[in-house]
Every structure is written in structure tokens, then in C-alpha cells.
């Protein structure tokens, strides 16, 4: 990478202080984190797969993934698509719900320097495991392909499913993250006001 870490900041991030090179400031590379499963820009995540702790992380991811997949299987059996042109309601709800929850989780776990204060297995278990195992891209793509192949009416349902899941998932992850941020920043304010003389 040719550009310096400080110069890669997007213009939209107002939470970051203009110069955070001092001691105790969050690693500027960690601010680049985009991938909630694992982002090697975050030093702690770069190291977490090593040694004995690495096998614990993998076991926790596996356990969470199994839990999430069972919940997805239950919901998709409970709300299956009806008929050849049926909208896959179960998988749609799974993906939208899972996206809302990852928005909540990642704000709680990783933003505002909270990485250090949350348990190191929380993100691997809930984010990578449970929510990663719960939501699915392959069933989404396969259901969409089945609908697109199934004649004019089914193809329209397929297009609605493709666009509806995408719009619902992006709205849900935004709402989950924005709502959690709003609660976190609003929460302690009255307390501080009361303590002030």
C-alpha cells in the first residue's frame, strides 16, 4: 500500500480525532476494519488465529455456526416457499434479521475503542459463528436462480426476491448500527449532566 495509514481516512468519519498518533489512541489501521468476520487490519484479529487460542477461536466459530444454521433451518422449514413461484419467506427473514443483528453487534463490539473491553471470543462466536451461520448467501442465490428459471411469473418473484433481500438487508444493517450508536451516545449523557456541579 503506497498511502500512509493516516491519509486513507474517508471524509465521512467525524468520530476520529484529527491526530491520533499519541499513546492510548486506537491503532489507525484498526479504523480501516471493514470485514466483521475477521479483518487483518486489526492487530488483535491478525493474531487471534495463532497458537492454542487459535483452536479455541475455531471451535467457538464452529459452535456458533452450528447454532445459527439450526435456527436458519428451523425458520426455513417453518416458512417454506409455497409452490414453484413461491417467495422464500423463511430465508428472506433469516437474512434481514441477521443483518440487523450484525449491525447491533459490531457497533457494540468494535466501535469507539470498545475492542479492548469486550471478551475476545464474543465477535468470533456471535458474529462469525452464530450470525454467519444463520444468514446465507448460497441459499439466496440458489432460490433466486430457481425462480428466474421458472417462467415469467416466477422470474418476477425472483427479481423481487433478489432486490427485496438486498434492500431489506442493507436497511436492516444500517438501522441496527445507527440505532445502537444513537442509544450508546445518548445513554450516558443525562448521568454526566447530573454529576456536573
Amino acid at each position: 500500500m503506497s498511502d500512509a495509514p493516516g491519509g486513507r481516512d474517508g471524509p465521512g468519519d467525524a468520530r476520529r480525532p484529527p491526530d491520533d498518533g499519541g499513546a492510548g489512541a486506537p491503532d489507525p489501521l484498526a479504523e480501516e476494519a471493514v470485514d466483521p468476520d475477521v479483518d487483518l487490519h486489526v492487530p488483535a484479529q491478525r493474531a487471534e488465529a495463532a497458537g492454542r487460542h487459535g483452536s479455541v477461536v475455531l471451535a467457538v466459530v464452529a459452535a456458533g455456526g452450528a447454532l445459527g444454521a439450526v435456527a436458519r433451518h428451523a425458520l426455513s422449514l417453518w416458512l417454506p416457499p409455497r409452490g414453484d413461484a413461491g417467495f422464500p419467506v423463511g430465508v428472506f427473514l433469516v437474512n434481514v434479521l441477521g443483518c440487523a443483528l450484525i449491525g447491533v453487534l459490531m457497533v457494540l463490539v468494535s466501535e469507539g475503542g470498545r475492542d479492548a473491553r469486550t471478551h475476545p471470543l464474543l465477535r468470533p462466536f456471535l458474529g462469525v459463528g452464530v450470525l454467519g451461520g444463520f444468514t446465507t448467501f448460497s441459499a439466496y442465490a440458489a432460490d433466486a436462480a430457481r425462480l428466474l428459471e421458472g417462467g415469467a411469473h416466477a422470474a418476477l418473484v425472483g427479481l423481487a426476491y433478489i432486490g427485496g433481500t438486498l434492500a431489506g438487508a442493507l436497511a436492516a444493517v444500517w438501522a441496527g448500527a445507527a440505532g445502537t450508536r444513537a442509544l450508546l451516545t445518548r445513554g450516558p449523557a443525562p448521568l454526566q449532566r447530573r454529576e456536573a456541579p
Partner: protein
Amino acid sequence: MNWLLVIAGAAVGAPLRYLTDRAVQSRHDSHFPWGTFAVNVAGSLALGLLTGAASAGVVGSGLTALLGTGLCGALTTYSTFSYETLRLAERGRRGTAVAYVAASLAAGLGAVFVGLTVARSLFM
């Protein structure tokens, strides 16, 4: 019985996503989430193959539960995909976010069709 197969498949699929993501990222330092893109497209290809084989009667419900619902389901992810898109957009990388969504949808759907076509030509 199928529930246990879903559990077994997902217990492999989720750590496989994590390890693949790490391996891809360690080779490509990029803002485009290649790791998640790779697992989502690979899982879609595999599910296309499996669905084609199942509709030809070659693969039973047990294997579909193990490899389709369990392994491919947990290997691929929508939550990671959507959170990455949100982060990219929030960090001012709107072009990358749009390209990521478009590429994931096109490649994921394309991979399913490739898998279906290969399975049908092999088994039907």
C-alpha cells in the same frame, strides 16, 4: 437425523469461511472484501452443483442437509456481506460498495447457474 447433518456441515462451513477469509486477506491488501466475496461465490457454485445433482436424483436429502443447508449455508454469509457494504459506504468508498454488491450478486447467481448446468450435463 437431518438436524445433526446440518449441525455437522455448519460446524465445518463457518470455520472454513473464517480461515478462507484470513488466507485471502493475507494475500490481497485491498478495500474490496475479496475474502467474503470468494466464500460467497464458491458456496453458491457448490450449492448449484448440489441442487442440480439432487434434482437429478443422484443426491439424497441427507447429503443436501449436510452439504447444502449446513456446509454451504454456513460457509456463505449475508450478514458479513451487508455489514461490509455499510462500512465501505460509511467510509466514503461508495464506488467500492456498489461494485461489491453488484459483483457479489452477479457472480453468486452466475455461479449457481454454472453449478446447475454442470450437474445437469453430468447427471441428467
